[in-house]
């Protein structure tokens, strides 16, 4: 086997026996990973798995151009050479592994805790004692100088939002550096899933990030389907697509409204606030819950839609769509709005690619990244998704990506509901495969959600890895703020609208 071709290919939503994944030597692993990345692969996930007293490292690479994934596996000990400088996408994954298992990536350029919890095996990578680490207690990057000042915000913020800590290094109004310390929402999701699925598992998955219940439930369901070898019935797949796109619509429309609110453009803020609720209510038509709880389940969806209900939903969405277009048109047609959005919070395409941004934030920088196109599953295989790519990298581009996706999702939902396939909405699966790895990528409304499960001899989860898009994109927000006015932080923050709990797990 050539060192550069050591990665084992895997289709999205597929499973592979662990025995088929060679345990590569460290150098072999590094060479193969860097070669794949040089050829355009992205690191979709990288995580450690304790095996006896040893620690195995898995890297899931997404080869968008080939439309497949590739798996690499090696072993790491208490220390291993960091690859973060050669592949910056890995920097946060290496810190996460260090925090969970105490394994130190030597030479890491920014070696700080991620979520501020005790390690899972008593080994602390930062040599902290037995006392529980406190969130955001760390050395922050500091700029020194007579006219330099530091602004600390959070964990409790001014609005009805989740907690996090932001530390700005400022010169006057200008931000030189923003450092973000999270972990306040850490609920230990990954460990709660161990030896599962448990009766509570679907509900914990749906609340990894509660505004992405459908997205995470879809990823988990696809992992479960891969392990059980079940086929998703066409009608179930179509309803899943409708639910996913409704989730995208609700959040994108809400985000445009929030941007409008932040710049004081109240008409769109008011309309979008209401319209977001209309999309949530449409989701509740499917399953009774505005966030889609209980809808997406392994094998399909838990509730069918009658022909009359589907027709009523279509009709209702026509009216909502008309109001949405009106609210958006007003927003994007107003010069004073555009003046506030254009050029604000810029992220360069090179930086976006280097740190591995995903979703809206990546597409707004000109990166073609959309799992619905490159790694489609279920009804997306035939949906013909064209990623909404914009080039500015600024708040405007992130708003414009959302605008395009709102329009596309409305069309997609309508055409899907108009031609719902007949048949069952859910299929029974077999027993989950033992000693296997299954991976699913889903394009949630924020971006790519990655779930990876390893099973033990009984087919239960021996490791469950979740990568929420926010895990990648918080770094993007920090980059976007460099050189900006501190008063533009809320606007830039809204333009990313990232999840705290999705990051904190």
């Amino acid at each position, binding site marked *: 086997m050539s060192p550069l071709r050591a990665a084992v290919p895997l289709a999205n939503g597929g499973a592979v026996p662990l025995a088929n994944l060679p345990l590569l030597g460290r150098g072999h692993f590094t060479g193969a990973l860097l070669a794949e990345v040089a050829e355009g692969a992205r690191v979709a996930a990288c995580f450690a798995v304790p095996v006896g007293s040893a620690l195995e490292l898995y890297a899931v690479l997404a080869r968008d151009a080939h439309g497949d994934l590739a798996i690499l596996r090696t072993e790491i000990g208490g220390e291993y050479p960091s690859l973060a400088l050669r592949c910056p996408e890995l920097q946060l994954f290496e810190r996460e592994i260090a925090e969970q298992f105490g394994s130190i990536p030597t030479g890491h350029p920014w070696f700080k805790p991620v979520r501020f919890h005790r390690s899972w095996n008593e080994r602390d990578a930062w040599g902290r004692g037995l006392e529980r680490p406190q969130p955001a207690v760390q050395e922050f990057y500091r700029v020194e100088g007579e006219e330099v000042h530091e602004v600390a915000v959070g964990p409790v913020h001014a609005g009805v939002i989740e907690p996090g800590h932001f530390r700005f290094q400022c010169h006057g109004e200008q931000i030189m550096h923003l450092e973000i310390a999270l972990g306040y929402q850490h609920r230990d999701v990954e460990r709660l899933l161990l030896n599962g699925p448990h009766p509570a598992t679907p509900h914990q998955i749906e609340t990894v990030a509660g505004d992405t219940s459908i997205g995470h439930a879809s990823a988990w369901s696809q992992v479960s389907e891969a392990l059980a070898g079940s086929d998703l019935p066409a009608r179930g797949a179509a309803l899943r697509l409708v639910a996913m796109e409704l989730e995208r619509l609700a959040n994108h429309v809400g985000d445009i409204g929030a941007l409008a609110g932040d710049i004081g453009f109240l008409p769109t803020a008011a309309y979008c606030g209401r319209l*977001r609720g209309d999309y949530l209510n449409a989701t509740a038509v499917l399953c009774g819950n505005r966030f889609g709880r209980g809808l997406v389940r392994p094998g399909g969806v838990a509730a069918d839609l009658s022909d009359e209900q589907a027709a009523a939903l279509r009709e209702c969405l026509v009216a909502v769509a008309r109001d949405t277009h009106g609210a958006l048109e007003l927003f994007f047609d107003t010069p004073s709005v555009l003046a506030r959005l254009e050029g604000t919070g810029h992220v360069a395409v090179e930086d976006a690619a280097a740190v591995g941004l995903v979703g809206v934030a990546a597409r707004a920088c000109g990166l073609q990244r959309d799992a619905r196109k490159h790694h489609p599953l279920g009804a997306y295989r035939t949906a013909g998704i064209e990623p909404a790519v914009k080039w500015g990298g600024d708040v405007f581009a992130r708003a414009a990506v959302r605008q395009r996706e709102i329009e596309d999702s409305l069309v997609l939902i309508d055409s899907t509901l108009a031609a719902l396939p007949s048949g069952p909405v859910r299929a029974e699966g077999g027993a989950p495969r033992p000693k296997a790895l299954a991976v699913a990528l889903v394009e949630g409304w924020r971006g790519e959600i990655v779930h990876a499960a390893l099973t033990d001899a009984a087919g239960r989860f021996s490791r469950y890895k979740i990568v929420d898009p926010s895990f990648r994109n918080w770094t993007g927000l920090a980059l976007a703020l460099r050189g900006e006015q501190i008063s533009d932080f809320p606007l830039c923050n809204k333009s990313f609208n990232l999840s705290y709990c999705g990051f904190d797990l």
Partner: protein
Amino acid sequence: MLKIIRERIRQGHRTASYPKEAPVLPERFRGAPRIVPELCREGCGDCIKACPFGAIEGTANGPRLDLGRCIFCGACAAACPHGVLEFSRDHRLAARRREDLLAGADGHRLAGALEGEMRRLFGRSLKLRQVSAGGCNACEADLNVLNTLVFDLARFGIQFVASPRHADGLMVTGPVTENMRFALLETYAALPAPKLVIASGACAIAGGPFRGSPECHDGIGDLLPVDLYIPGCPPHPYTALDGLLRLLGRL
């Protein structure tokens, strides 16, 4: 400017006429449970076994559902072969005391109004500081919805404020992660007395889906004195609004 006015006319007036008219919720919405013990078969226990969070207890008078632990997934109703337990579309769920959330054959006890001085102080104007302590952003999102023009929370004299110093009450979401415990207690301490505490959502009441997590506290019950419990995962905006208005003696 003309475009704005035209669009304003086109979008129309959208504020709901609640509480004059009861809200119409989707057909599949799961609200207050209806329990008919006469249909219950002794020794069955299917509903108890179906609940992932141990919210159901068998009593001599049929099952009793703890709306504090319940995330309204409907697994119990689906599991019951006799139709003993089902969820209605009634959004009214909030209660003043933890034990009032136990729903049996007679339903559960809805929240009553604040008493005496507290009602005089807050009955017409209530400022709330919200703290998310491990919330998944669904509770937070549906509290934010109360500020939209549909619900227009401010017309009831209720407002979310930025500073705990300006607040009369603390509205908590989330199971209280260990990493947020200190910040939550500090925020509570920063509120001037007399003050209220509201536990909004299954997590804040009893831990929700994260009940039993070593990194969470199973809600705020052991940390703060609670004046109002609003069940749901997340509570529907009307459930939250109903609870707040009941607390202020406005319903």
